[in-house]
């Protein structure tokens, strides 16, 4: 393959350089940046027509957490740097893909545990160990996912090592191997084939590696990662509770300069426009962050246009954002039960405030709000139970995307932590019924594990795309019904889908049906449907509760 002479030149230049801690930092930053640039591409690949698991976002957050650990470091040792990266990735890991990604880093770090700089042999060994660790971290490894990609690239590296000693050539080889592997994932996983997409996690891994190669080749990454927090993290900053007047819009301008910048004049000019000014410098790229009042909506970008080339402008309505936070806070906080020292404390991950209140009423000691995407990090989970006055902790993840982060939290905490593999809210609630706070830990854990299979879970949501899954065709906008995670029906009406779900679940064989309605449906609408169900199943006890969960109009427990 004929390479652009410029690229060849750059590669020769980088070949002479040592791949030490500093080089690794630049490479990680590049991988993160390129992944972030393509974040939405990865998100859109999420097969399931429900936006409740954003692979791209999860992997970016994981990589950002990893990068944050080393961004200010001056460490020269490759192995010390990568160990810190692995630790950061682990603590910030979100979602299944994020956690597996962190395992990949961890495995790699383990294999290269005492080197100042990376050579091709260590590179290959690192990838092999990364593969091993990633697979080991998954109880039931599924092919056609990020696991397959790490497997394929480690094999490609093993083969290539006999032919070349050049780490950069090796990187090129594995990037190509990753690309091929990702393209083949639909052949390994039916769900992907049915939806006509490749695996999102695998694609994310590919972007990270490709980003590193692009950095070496001098190709654009489109955004600088060397600046302050990414937009999404600003949302998480709770200090936004009290916003000063004049802060209507958050404006972020990315640009390149035409000449040198006179910093003092620059800052004072900006200060006349707005507040909360942050300015970051990267490799020839700059990013300006500023809050402006409504009347200064266009000022920052117009100002910058006179100094250089604006490459991107992003704006966020702060007032609206704050209003929704205030509205959210107005709803009463769930009251958690204090844990007696030495008793068992349960941590539940919940998707909505209504469900949080129910778990709280049953005696959980701590709650993790899963948010729109249900992807709390390992660190977030640990932080909820670290301060409880007991060493006996039980985690209820209540979502399959959170299982791994929960297991990680269990592994990394010094406390005695058990994870009950609840995949749905009804399973989590059922497990909670078995809690005896002063009971024997192992016995309670075993009982909770048993309780999982004692309830059937139904979920009703709106399909965001036209798909065929599990043999069921759904058009965009249809209400789809899932029974224990499997799609069983798709209809144009909420009522029809609920009835279909109950049929598929053989609800007539059970005695209690509980509806938790979400934040995308009103109480009146929910009541109307529940009453229809009551008429259809007059012998059953039917309960309705406000769940406030996003995405799912109904979560249904059948028992």
């Amino acid at each position, binding site marked *: 393959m004929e390479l652009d002479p410029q690229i060849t030149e750059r590669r020769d230049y980088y070949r002479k350089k040592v791949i030490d801690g500093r080089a690794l930092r630049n490479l990680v930053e590049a991988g993160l940046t390129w992944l972030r640039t393509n974040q939405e591409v990865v998100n859109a690949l999420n097969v399931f027509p429900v936006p409740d698991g954003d692979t791209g976002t999860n992997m970016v957050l994981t990589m950002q957490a990893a990068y944050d650990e080393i961004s200010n470091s001056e460490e020269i040792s490759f192995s010390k740097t990568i160990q810190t990266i692995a630790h950061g990735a682990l603590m910030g890991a979100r979602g299944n893909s994020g956690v597996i990604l962190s395992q990949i880093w961890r495995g790699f770090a383990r294999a290269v545990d005492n080197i100042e700089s990376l050579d091709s042999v260590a590179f290959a060994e690192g990838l092999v160990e990364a593969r091993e660790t990633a697979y080991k971290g998954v109880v039931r490894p599924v092919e056609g996912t990020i696991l397959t990609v790490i497997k394929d690239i480690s094999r490609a590296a093993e083969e290539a090592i006999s032919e070349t000693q050049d780490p950069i050539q090796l990187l090129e080889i594995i990037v190509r191997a990753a690309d091929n592997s990702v393209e083949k994932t639909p052949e390994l996983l039916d769900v992907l084939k049915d939806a006509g997409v490749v695996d999102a996690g695998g694609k994310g891994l590919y972007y990270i590696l490709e980003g590193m190669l692009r950095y070496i080749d001098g190709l654009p990454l489109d955004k600088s990662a060397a600046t302050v927090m990414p937009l999404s993290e600003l949302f998480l900053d709770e200090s936004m509770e009290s916003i000063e007047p004049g802060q209507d819009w958050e404006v972020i301008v990315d640009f390149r300069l035409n000449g040198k910048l006179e910093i003092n004049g620059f800052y004072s000019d900006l200060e006349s426009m707005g507040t909360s000014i942050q300015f970051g410098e990267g490799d020839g790229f700059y990013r300006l962050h500023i809050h402006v009042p409504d009347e200064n909506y266009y000022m920052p970008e117009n100002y910058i246009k006179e100094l250089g080339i604006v490459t991107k402008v992003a704006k966020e309505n702060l007032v609206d954002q704050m209003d929704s936070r205030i509205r959210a806070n107005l709803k009463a906080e769930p009251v958690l*039960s204090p844990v007696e020292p030495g008793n068992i404390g349960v941590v539940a991950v919940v998707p909505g405030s209504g469900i949080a*209140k*129910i778990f709280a*009423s*049953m*005696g959980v000691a701590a709650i993790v709000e899963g948010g729109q995407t249900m992807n709390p990090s390992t660190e977030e989970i640990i932080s909820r139970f670290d301060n409880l006055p007991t060493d006996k902790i039980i985690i209820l993840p209540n979502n399959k995307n959170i299982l791994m982060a929960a297991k990680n939290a269990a592994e990394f905490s010094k406390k005695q932590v058990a994870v009950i593999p609840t995949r749905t809210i009804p399973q989590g*609630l*059922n497990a909670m*019924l*078995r*809690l*005896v706070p002063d009971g024997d830990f192992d016995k309670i854990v075993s*009982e909770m594990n048993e309780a999982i299979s*004692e309830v059937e879970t139904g979920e009703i949501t709106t399909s965001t795309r036209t798909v065929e899954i599990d043999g069921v065709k759904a058009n965009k906008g249809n209400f789809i019904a899932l029974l224990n995670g499997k799609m069983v029906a798709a209809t144009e009406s909420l009522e029809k889908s609920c009835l279909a779900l109950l049929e598929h679940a053989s609800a007539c064989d*059970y*005695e*209690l049906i*509980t509806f938790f309605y979400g934040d995308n449906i009103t109480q009146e609408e929910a009541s109307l449907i529940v009453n229809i169900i009551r008429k259809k199943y007059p012998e059953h*006890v039917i*309960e309705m*509760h406000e769940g406030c969960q996003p995405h799912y109009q109904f979560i249904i427990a059948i*028992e």
Partner: protein
Amino acid sequence: MLKTAIVTDSTADIPDETINKYNIQVNPNILIIENQNFRDGIDLSRNEFYELLPSLKNPPTTATASSGSYQQIYEDLLNHGYDQIVSLHVSKQFSGVLNAASTAAQIFKNRVYVIDSKSVSMGLGFQVIESARTAHDTGDIIKIINRIEVLQPRIRLCAMLDTLEYLHRSGRVSWARARIGNLLRVKTFIEVKDGQARRIEDVRTRRKGFERLLNFLRSYEPLERLAILHSNAEDEAKKFLEAYSNNLKEDPIIVNVTTTIGTHVGPKGLGFAVVLK
């Protein structure tokens, strides 16, 4: 041979035939419904009570028989051929009966022994029946007391309550207040051990509760004695006994618990009392 009388209160839930067979003296507790007093098991039948319950504006309450009434009973027995008395009662955690009996017993120094059964319903009942048998066979009070001491640790009582509301209102179980806040409707399992009522777990459906109750019963095997207890749930109690295939020397009995217990646990309760082998 000395003659020893056995006295208890109405929470013992002993079947009438057994009471008559061994001449057990039962001093009834008091049920108070809208300011009217009813002697437990005498003035108001269980059926009448459960029929009345849903329509009552104020929940019924209970009271113990007076110390004076115990004194009367002890005096009568001692004057009519009995040399000593064993007076066995419901756990002092649940009721003031023990106090009333103890106060009365003081006058009769060393002739009346008041004992805390550390249980209730047939948990108390089994101890009373055993004492009565031993009294009938030997009259020896030391033997009777030994028998009770050996028996007590082998007694278990477990029940599924349809709701915690009644227990909470009874004020006798402090944790019931905390658990009442559960937003989901649940049925709670309690276990009576060492005189205290302890919550074991919750279930959402009766069917599940039935299953769990069976499991709990089986977990106590091997059994020497079994009594199925219920509060106005006779059919279910029968089904439960059928479902539990057993091989006990002494036939299990089904007991509709007395109204003073019914007041505190509510209707549709289902459980059992056992003596472990």
